[in-house]
Structure formats: structure tokens, C-alpha cells
């Protein structure tokens, strides 16, 4: 591939504390999703499919798993001569000590030297924890066509929910005229997706200035974008249409998984022209036993189903024993449901064992039950 003139930086520092124990050992972008994926597979596959060669992944929180996961750039084909996925953590520098990233903009600022190595014309800033398919090359086309200084991807949200988002108010030509963070009275329903394209030269200058500003939060939404608007720069909104999900809570993560059970789920993971790449595990295809009773499920290699499994999403290497029942649930990688156990409306974290005869979750619960520790059997 000819050197892409756009380099991507994925902000993957998310603590994701509303996902509770799911993120006690892994950063949110490394959380499992959709049977065989991790959330960060989406932005990384989008980059690979958009022809972006070099991706920096910015992380500071409990990054061992995320680090070793994304470092194998071969998963997304990003391991050729001049391409790569690089994990960038805070570093000790000659002139300063070791600092955490203080904000989204600071995370980029602290890695200016990395970006300079590649000398890109454009910088794409992404969040590592959203599920969607998007062609960033088309977004760059829009950026170039408009001659913009920055382009921000926006998602139309229901007007009544708009006050929960950062809202972009645009003029008739799609120019952003105002940015409001969670406005009480939203003027538009275009929510920022946290996806930015900047012309790098200009952004670099702004970041250097921002780093020196003691009053700045070093955040794109709070500081950089308002400053650019104040300076009269040309910022445009790039409207995204399609499936997009921020899986910030257990309920929304469960829901995003259950979406996959619909034939027309909008995400279409089977689209051969825009594959989502992920780790390949050495496991047999899914095995369904002679006495299994399955209906409306999403399964993948390594699954061994011998019991009743209905309306559920089962991840790699999950086991449902004979006589067990799994309904309306999401079982993350390696979950074992032993004989006679009953799992209903639950999201079971990776590796958890539900012992013989145990009952977890209930068909009547309002919220989805997160099961993150082994559940003892009832003998």
C-alpha cells in the first residue's frame, strides 16, 4: 500500500467502570462482543478496510491484555513492511517524569514524536469502545472536498435523547457553528461520535499550545474543538448512518449482543466486503449434541451445546451441559454451564463456571444480571 497520508490514533484508555467486573482486569476496548470479537476489533478493522496503514492505540489503564491483543497487528493485516499497530502508553521523557494522559488531547500531545515519525497529512482520532462499521476513507474525502480544518463524525439521535450527548449545531452546508456538551435544550440531534479528522500540521500547533495552557482539560470536546470554532476554523460534520452502539452498561452490552439474533441486524457481520477481523482460536467448529435443544442462537467455534439454549449469544469455547438451560443470555468466552443449571437474562463473564443445578437470573428481572464469579452448584 502506498503510504496512506492519514494516520489513526485510537483512544483506548477507557476505564469503563459502568461495566463493573468486566473491566476489572481488562480495559473497555478489550471487552468481548458478538461471539468472537473484542470491541476494539471494530475500529481496527475499520482502519484496515479503509486503507489506513499505521494505527496508534493509546492506553494507560490495565493494558496488558489489550496491549498483547492489539500488538499482533497481523489480525487486521496491519503487519506489512510499512504498516503496524502500536500500543502507546505514557512514557518517561528526558525532560519530564512519567505522566498519565490527562485528557483525550493530551494523549495525542504526548505522542507527537510518534506521529512525527510518519509525518502524516491527516490525523484520524477514534474511540476504542464503539461498535460500528465505517469507511474513514470516505470521511477523509468529505474533509478534503470541503477543505475543512477538522471533520467530526456525527450520528443523528432521537431529539429527546440529544441532551445526553455532545451536540453539533451545523449550518445548511454542514459547517459546525457551535458545539454544546449535553445541552439542556438541544438545537440539533447530531451527536458527536468522538471521531475526528484533523489536518495534522494545524492540530500539532494547537496541541503544543494546549499543553502549555494550565487551565485546559486537554480534551478535544472541551478545549480543542471550541478553540478551533473560536478561531473561525472550518469544521464540518460528517453524518454517519448505520448501526452504532456505545456499550457503556451491562444492559446495553447485552442488548448489543442480542441485536445479532435478528436476521436484519444492521451491523451485518457477514458482509464480505467489510469484514471485522479478530483473533483466531484453535478450536473445533461448534458442536451440538444429540440431545440439545437449540433455537435462535448465535454460536461460534469451540461451543459445545448439549442442553437447551434459546435466544442467546454464545462466545468461543462456551459449554452448556446436558440438562442445563440457557435462555435470553450472553455467555462470554469459556463459560461453562453445568448439568441442570439454569441461566436466564444474564450476561456471564468470560471463564465463569455455573455449577450443577445452580439457577442464575430470572425471566422477570428488569435489568440483566452480570455474573462475574463462579456460581457453586446445588448438589
Amino acid at each position, binding site marked *: 500500500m502506498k503510504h496512506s497520508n492519514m494516520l489513526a490514533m485510537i483512544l483506548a484508555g477507557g476505564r469503563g467502570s459502568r461495566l463493573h467486573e468486566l473491566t476489572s482486569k481488562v480495559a473497555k476496548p478489550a471487552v468481548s462482543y*458478538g*461471539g*468472537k470479537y473484542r470491541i476494539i476489533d471494530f475500529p481496527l478493522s475499520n482502519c484496515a478496510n479503509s486503507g489506513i496503514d499505521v494505527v496508534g492505540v493509546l492506553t494507560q489503564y490495565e493494558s496488558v491484555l489489550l496491549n498483547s491483543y492489539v500488538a499482533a497487528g*497481523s489480525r487486521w493485516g496491519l503487519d506489512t513492511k510499512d504498516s503496524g499497530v502500536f500500543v502507546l502508553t505514557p512514557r518517561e521523557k528526558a525532560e519530564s517524569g512519567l505522566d498519565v494522559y490527562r485528557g483525550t488531547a493530551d494523549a495525542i500531545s504526548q505522542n507527537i514524536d510518534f506521529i512525527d515519525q510518519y509525518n502524516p497529512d491527516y490525523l484520524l482520532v477514534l474511540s476504542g469502545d464503539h461498535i460500528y462499521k465505517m469507511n474513514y476513507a470516505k470521511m477523509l474525502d468529505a474533509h478534503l472536498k470541503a477543505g475543512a480544518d477538522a471533520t467530526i463524525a456525527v450520528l443523528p439521535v432521537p431529539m429527546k435523547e440529544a441532551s445526553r450527548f455532545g451536540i453539533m449545531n451545523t449550518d445548511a452546508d454542514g459547517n459546525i457553528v457551535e458545539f454544546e456538551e449535553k445541552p439542556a435544550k438541544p438545537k440539533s440531534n447530531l451527536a458527536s461520535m468522538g471521531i475526528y479528522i484533523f489536518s495534522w500540521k494545524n492540530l500539532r500547533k494547537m496541541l503544543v499550545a494546549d499543553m502549555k495552557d494550565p487551565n485546559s482539560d486537554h480534551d478535544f470536546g472541551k478545549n480543542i474543538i471550541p478553540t478551533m470554532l473560536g478561531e473561525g476554523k472550518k469544521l464540518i460534520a460528517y453524518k454517519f448512518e448505520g448501526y452504532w452502539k456505545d456499550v457503556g452498561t451491562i444492559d446495553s452490552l447485552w442488548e448489543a449482543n442480542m441485536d*445479532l*439474533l435478528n*436476521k436484519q441486524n444492521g451491523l451485518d*457481520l*457477514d458482509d464480505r466486503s467489510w*469484514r*471485522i*477481523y*479478530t483473533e*483466531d482460536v*484453535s478450536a*473445533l*467448529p*461448534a*458442536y*451440538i*449434541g*444429540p*440431545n*440439545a435443544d*437449540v*433455537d*435462535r*442462537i*448465535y*454460536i*461460534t*467455534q469451540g461451543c*459445545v451445546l448439549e442442553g437447551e439454549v434459546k435466544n442467546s449469544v454464545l462466545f468461543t469455547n462456551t459449554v452448556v451441559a446436558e440438562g442445563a438451560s440457557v435462555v435470553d443470555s450472553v455467555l462470554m468466552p469459556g463459560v461453562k454451564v453445568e448439568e441442570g443449571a439454569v441461566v436466564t437474562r444474564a450476561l456471564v463473564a468470560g471463564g465463569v463456571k455455573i455449577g450443577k443445578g445452580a439457577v442464575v437470573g430470572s425471566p422477570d428481572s428488569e435489568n440483566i444480571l452480570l455474573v462475574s464469579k463462579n456460581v457453586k452448584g446445588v448438589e
Partner: protein
Amino acid sequence: MARAFGIVTSTPRRVNVYGLQDCRPAGAFSFLGRYRVIDFPISNLTNSGIENIQVYLNKFPRSLTDHLGTGRQYNINSKNGRLQLLFCNHNNHNEVYNTDVSDYLDNMDYLNLIDQEYVVIQPCYMIFKQDFADILEEHIQSGADISMLYHKVNNGRDHFLSCRVVTVDKDQKITSLSENRGNRASQSIFMDSYVMKKDLFVDLVRKAREYSSTFSLAQMISKECEEQNLNIRGIQHKGYFAAICDLQSYYDASIELLDMKVARSLFSDDWPIYTRTTDSCPTQVFEGANIYHSLVSDGCEIEGTVANSVIGRGVKIGRDAVVKNSVVLSYSEIGPGVHMEYQIVDKWAKVLKTKELIARPDDPGYVKTADRL
């Protein structure tokens, strides 16, 4: 560096798998949904710490070249190890010349460049698990010139008829290597697998060609057994073993591995079978579908009934379709209401209009690649 070099041979002439073999060699056959047959011998080598491997390709090299690539999926370090694909000057006009010996002679320059002291030779059409680090150790300890793997079967009268058999004396010495004439149920099937010094191997290849232009290595060694010049020792293999020699044995091996007890003797956590990923998404099983006693690969959409079958990647099975006792290869489609039993459906086929396809377990049906029925 390991002391041994690995060789996976090209499909021998005696292997004749109806239909499947029309456009790919036996090593490239899809197996159990996500594997190809050659994944088994190559995983045996890399799991045994052997990372310098030659794979001989004869007719139809494309599919295996694609599948094998540079061998990264098998954990072959691209710097310290090497998966080398070697092509043969296939004689299109008289099959009798296309022997393994002829493959080796076509590539003698690359055999001569081997640094390792020993070679481990495996066929591309047999499925088994074997730690060759152990075999090599045993070979060296025993002082044998050649060690050969064999597997004892009790159905040699009507199975393994295109394999060779060995007779082994009480000291594990091989006293004969000959065709399986089906004259006895209890047989020791030769697994086309050898361990010997590289120099002896090269000598035998040269000697075979001098003796006859159509001689294979096995024929040469059979002669050596008779002449008792060499110390040839048998090592009995235990665990799962299948030889894919014809369509029936391909079908039988696929179906018998649906028994998880049998499968566990081939697949285990400490012996990963590596293969190339195709980045398929998971499989969707829709409302009203039924699946029993089957292996279902990723990327499928299943609305009908699947029983006692192996389903490849990206297969679509329509509403009210019934797929029973069948092997459906990747990207095929079984339309709504179609009823099939004892079928092998090759890749990209679409069975839409023919609503009933029923064969017998001892003579399974075959649907050709990309055919529309």
C-alpha cells in the same frame, strides 16, 4: 534448531477420491468444516518442534499454495524456520511416472541444502496425531536405520484397501511391506510415515530411480525389507487414525469424528491443529431451526434441520430443509424444503430445485463444486 527436517509428500497415485480430487490434491480437502487435511501432518510437525518443512505439490498447486502461505498460522517462525513449497514436473501423459521419488528428484537441489541430520516424512492424506519428537528419540535410541509408523486395524478386509500393510516381528522389526489385499481383517496399516537419516533418504531415492523409473520410496523400502540390508523398525501408532483414500473413507472419517469421544483422541488442548482463518463471523441459528449431533462451522445461517452432519463455513440451510448424515462443504446452500441424507456437497454448490437427495451410508452421494441442483 531441531535435529529433524519435515517432509509432507504429494498425493500418491493410489489415492482416488471421486469428485473432490477433480480440482485439488488430497491435502487441500476441506475437513470437519474448518480444516484442510494437510493441517494435521503440518501441525504434527510444528507441535513436535520441527519448523523446517518441505511440502511437495503436484497437480493443482493453487489451493494448497493459498492455504499454506508462509506457514505463519502453523507457528512457523519465518526467520528461523521455513515452509517451502516444492513443485514437481508432473507428467500429464503417463501417471505411472508421477511418484514421490520423481518429486524428490525434481527438487534434489533443495533436498541437498537441508542442514538437519534426520528427515520425518508424512503423507498429506492421512489424519492422525503424533509427536515426532518422541518418535525421533525412539528412532535414535533403537539404532534402527528406518523407523516406520503403522496402525493396527480390525477392518482391513474391506477398508484401507489402497494402503500398504507391514508385518512386524516380536522385536518390532519390519519384515515385509506390501499391498493390503484385503485377505485379513486384522492388519497393520503402514502410515506412509518414516524417520531416517537424511543421507539414507537421499540414497534410497537415487537407488529407487536406478531400479525403476516408476518406483516409489515405499516400493524401494519394500525391496530393502526383502533383502534385509537395513534395520527397519516399526513403531505402532495409537489414537485416532484415518486414511482418506476414496470418497467413502472421506465420508466415514467426517462422520465418525462427530462422536466427541473419538474427536478428543485427535484434538486436545496441548496439540492444537492449526489452520488458516477465513475471518468468518459466527453462525446464526434462527427460530424454528433444529440441530442435533453435528459440527457447525462459523458464518452459517441455519433455518432448517441439521442432524448427524458436518457443516462447513458460510453454509446456508433454508427453512424446512433437512440435512441428515451429510457433509456440506463451505459456502454451499441447501434451499428451503430440500431433504438430503448421506450426501457430500462440495463447495459453492446450491441445492435448490432438487428437493430430495438420498443415498446410502455405504455409498454416499456427491454434489459437485458450484453445481446448481
